[in-house]
């Protein structure tokens, strides 16, 4: 069990995170917040890249800082900007990182082709990464995070640069892995987590706003989400009068979705809230940042 025990992180006078308290058991946790909310700071503290100013993070009762390499042995990490050596091939790079992770050469040589196949890079495993696309590099990053079969997998914006097929494959992979490990992935893309996460963690105002299963989060807005159609010419007036959370075009009309405590009009139908509604409602304009 991983516990973030009343952790704060300050950079001088700047507060990056304040009094964060979280508990993780095996499963998938989606850290959902707009850019700049403090997701990466929390991620970096979880992987011991930075230390909390206050509080501590414990794994099975022991402070992860004191565990040192014993903790890092259990860790798989994909940073937001995954760094690599351009003149290395994925196979060579993974072999290098295997050595740093204390995996024997023999074991690594067996494991690496399987992992690269898993992320769809088996055909280019010996090609230099210099000419790889962003999505391909990200897939190398995912493979390296899985090298040591980590008990704690921390992924910072893992789907950045992946196309829809790769995203779907990645989600499937995470679901398969989640059975006996803690997976924490940060994202600001709702669809990355809504179908796979056991719980969603939302950060607002430098602290944890919610840590709940998706169903419970959606219940927060139950009976308060309405949808209606409006003509294009009325759209601007509509936007000014109501706090819409989303809008889309459908059959030559605008479909508005908004939160209201009471039904403003009989013709406007109440709909089931989604995670995206919660996200947009919580973060408002900031969600689009």
């Amino acid at each position, binding site marked *: 069990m991983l516990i973030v025990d009343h952790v704060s992180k300050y950079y001088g006078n700047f507060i990056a995170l304040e009094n964060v308290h979280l508990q993780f058991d095996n499963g998938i946790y989606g850290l959902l917040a707009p850019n700049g909310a403090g997701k990466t700071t929390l991620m970096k503290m979880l992987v011991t*890249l930075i230390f909390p100013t206050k509080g501590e993070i414990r794994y099975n009762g022991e402070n992860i*800082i004191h565990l040192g390499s014993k903790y890092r042995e259990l*860790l798989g990490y994909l940073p937001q900007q995954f760094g690599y050596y351009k003149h290395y091939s994925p196979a060579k790079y993974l072999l290098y*990182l295997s050595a740093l992770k204390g995996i*024997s050469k023999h074991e690594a040589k067996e494991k690496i082709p399987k992992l690269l196949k898993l992320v769809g890079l088996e055909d280019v495993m010996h090609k230099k990464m210099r000419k790889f696309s962003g999505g391909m590099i990200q897939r190398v990053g995912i493979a390296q995070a899985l090298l*040591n079969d980590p008990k704690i997998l921390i992924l910072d914006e893992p789907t950045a640069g992946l196309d829809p097929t790769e995203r779907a494959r990645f989600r499937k992979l995470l679901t398969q892995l989640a059975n006996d490990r803690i997976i924490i992935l940060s994202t600001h893309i709702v669809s990355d987590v809504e179908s796979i996460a056991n719980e969603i963690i939302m950060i607002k105002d430098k602290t944890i706003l919610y840590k709940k299963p998706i169903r419970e989060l959606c219940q927060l807005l139950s009976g308060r989400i309405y949808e209606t159609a409006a003509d294009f010419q009325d759209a601007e007036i509509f936007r000014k009068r109501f706090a819409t959370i989303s809008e889309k075009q459908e059959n030559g009309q605008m479909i508005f979705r908004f939160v209201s405590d009471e039904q403003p009009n009989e013709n406007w139908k109440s709909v089931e809230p989604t995670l995206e509604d919660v996200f947009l409602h919580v973060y408002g304009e900031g969600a689009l940042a």
Partner: protein
Amino acid sequence: MAIDNEKIPFPSDKEIQQEIQKIIAKGMNKKPSFWQYMFTMYREVGFRNVFRDLTEIAFTIVLTIAVFAMFVLSTAEYFSWTALDVYTLIFCFSPVVYFVIVFFFFICQKQKPAFEVEMTCKYNVYQLAAFRMFMFSIFAMLANGVIIFWLATEFSIHFPFAFLLSVASLFLFAAAFLYVLLYVPTKSGKIALFISWIAANLFLSYMNSYVYQAFLLNVPYFIYIIIGMAAMYIYVHQLKLFFVKTNIKGVL
């Protein structure tokens, strides 16, 4: 009712304690010593990965030695180097090769794209650095030996004495450098130490060359051996400290 009178053998307190100690000894993994850990790390990571940038290191060493040799040879035309000056030079510049390799390694390391991933591995960048620094210090000692051997042929200095002087200087500086690495996180702190070392030695030799050189030359051999050994001991102690602290150290 015979069962009531039956004696059940019960272990004494001493036996209980012995059994507890036996269980603990068998159950607990023995903490490896610093050298065992270093050796395991080297075995698991491998020479190729520990010295992944071997070409850059070799280039840095060749460049440093070439600059030093050029400095001595070019100044020899205008300045007559006496044996005493050479001893000053040796004491002053012995840590240069070591400093250049280690310092550039630390500068380059943080600029490397894979730094964050490497820092979260079982053997992180700083642990590898501790091992590399130890190897560099051995290498620098040998490289200094070669340079001093060359200087001995050119300037008729006493090789064993000059070598001892160099070893003492190298390990004193290396220990101080490790201290700065641990407690002064800024780049300028490391540079300041190096500049101070050179400047202080040059200043002392310039201001009162007689006293400075008399100190360097009149100290008996065995004192240099003691100083050298003590410096090595302090260095290894600092290295162990660096290793332990950086095992749990973050980037910021």
